[in-house]
Structures are given as structure tokens and as C-alpha cells.
């Protein structure tokens, strides 16, 4: 007899079977007990069907959710990339003409979203300029940081770019 850490008495026999389980060495009896357990055909087929079909359905729904989420993330990344680029290219013209900042990013972003089959109403595209989107003519030109945020259902992402005006 051996005493373990909690003070309980453990038989040598149980220690040997535990050791063989950990090391993978079999003394014969343990594995044959397991294989005989799985070879036993008794039980309810209905219960087995329900259990395994619900497990499969759970796995399938998880895989579909994951692929949908990944698809939306890729779409949002694409919107950010193209929207921000269009905005940077249009900003100089916008500053001169005084038109609304963010117009180019939203237009391009919506067009990209449409290509990915995203629902236009659920898609939110916002542009933030730091320190400001408007550049006054009398002020010395300063760099503008553009931050574009895109939200679509549970996916939200942002990307920034610096626009230097000379």
C-alpha cells in the first residue's frame, strides 16, 4: 500500500494500471477492456442517431459561420484598401473644390461591397480626418491623417493613411 499526496491510500494495482495508461504500455487487461466496451453493440440506435446528428449539425454550422465571417472580413479589408486609396487620390481635388470629404471613399467602398454581395444598408463607411478634413487656404499645408472605419454586421475594421499636402 502507498499513501498519495492527499493522504489517501492507493493500491499498487491501481498505480500500475495508471502508469500503463500514461506510458502507453499495456499489461493486456486495460486495452482489452476498452475494445470490448466498444465492441458491445447494446444501446439505443435512436439516441446514437440523435447525438451524432446534432454533433455533426453543430460542427457544420460552426464551419459555415466561420467561413461567412472570414468572407466578410476579407470584403471589409478590400473596402478599406480601395476606399482609402480613392479618398487619398481625391483629397487634393476635394480640398480645392470644397466638396464633401469621404465622398470618394464611400462611393468606392459601396461599389466594392456590392461586388462582394454585401447588403448596402448594413454597410457603414465613415471617414475621420486628423486634425481636420478641411484645409484653409491661408493656413500652411500640414499632413492630414485619414482614418476609414468600415462596419458590416459583426465585422468592424479600420485603416489609416497620411496625406501630405505641399
Amino acid at each position: 500500500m502507498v499513501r498519495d499526496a492527499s493522504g489517501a491510500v492507493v493500491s499498487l494495482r491501481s498505480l500500475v494500471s495508471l502508469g500503463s495508461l500514461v506510458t502507453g504500455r499495456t499489461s493486456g487487461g486495460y486495452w482489452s477492456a476498452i475494445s470490448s466496451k466498444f465492441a458491445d453493440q447494446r444501446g439505443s440506435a435512436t439516441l446514437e442517431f440523435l447525438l451524432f446528428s446534432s454533433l455533426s449539425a453543430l460542427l457544420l454550422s460552426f464551419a459555415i459561420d466561420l467561413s461567412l465571417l472570414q468572407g466578410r472580413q476579407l470584403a471589409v479589408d478590400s473596402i478599406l484598401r480601395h476606399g482609402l486609396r480613392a479618398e487619398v487620390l481625391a483629397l487634393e481635388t476635394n480640398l480645392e473644390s470644397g466638396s464633401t470629404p469621404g465622398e470618394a471613399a464611400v462611393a468606392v467602398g459601396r461599389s466594392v461591397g456590392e461586388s462582394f454581395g454585401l447588403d448596402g444598408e448594413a454597410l457603414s463607411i465613415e471617414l475621420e480626418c486628423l486634425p481636420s478634413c478641411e484645409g484653409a487656404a491661408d493656413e500652411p499645408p500640414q499632413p492630414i491623417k485619414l482614418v476609414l472605419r468600415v462596419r458590416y454586421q459583426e465585422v468592424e475594421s479600420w485603416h489609416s493613411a497620411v496625406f501630405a499636402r505641399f
Partner: protein
Amino acid sequence: MQLVLTAHLKTRVTDFAVSLAHELALADRELADADWLAAQLATERLPGLSPSYQAGLETSSGGSLIVVETRLTMGGLLASLGALELVSTARAKTELE
């Protein structure tokens, strides 16, 4: 498995089509330059796969649009999971005429 793989590849193919259309539109490139651009984008967005594409100009009341239709046909291991052909179309406004 096939469903997930198809959904993933479809998004990648769409990303490729959208990128090609917008790169061509933003840079105001001639459509003749599209081959070089498509090869670069394919290496970046669809590594190891060879998508084919057709680019054209579409004129609507709002102006000209570059239309890119991309087609990806599976081969090898992917084809053994189910013969697939993914097609995506993207449009981008352009100044080209």
C-alpha cells in the same frame, strides 16, 4: 469541407476581380496593361492558382465602367473535392473611354 473551401475561394476570387478593376480604374491604365497587373495581383491574392480574366469597358449614363470578369477553374487536389469553377464580376468607375 467543400462548402467552406468554395466560400473562401469565392471571396478571394472576388477580391482579385475588385482589385484588378479598381487598380485599372484608379491608375487610368490602358486595358493592354491589365495582363501585367493581373499577374502581380494573382501572385499576391491567389498564390498558387491561375485565374483567367476578361476586362472590358461598359458605358452607362453615369459614365464609363471597367468590368472585370474573373474565372477560376480548380485542378489537382481541389478538383478531386468536386469540380469547381468560380466566376466573379467586379465594376469600377473610370475616366477611360
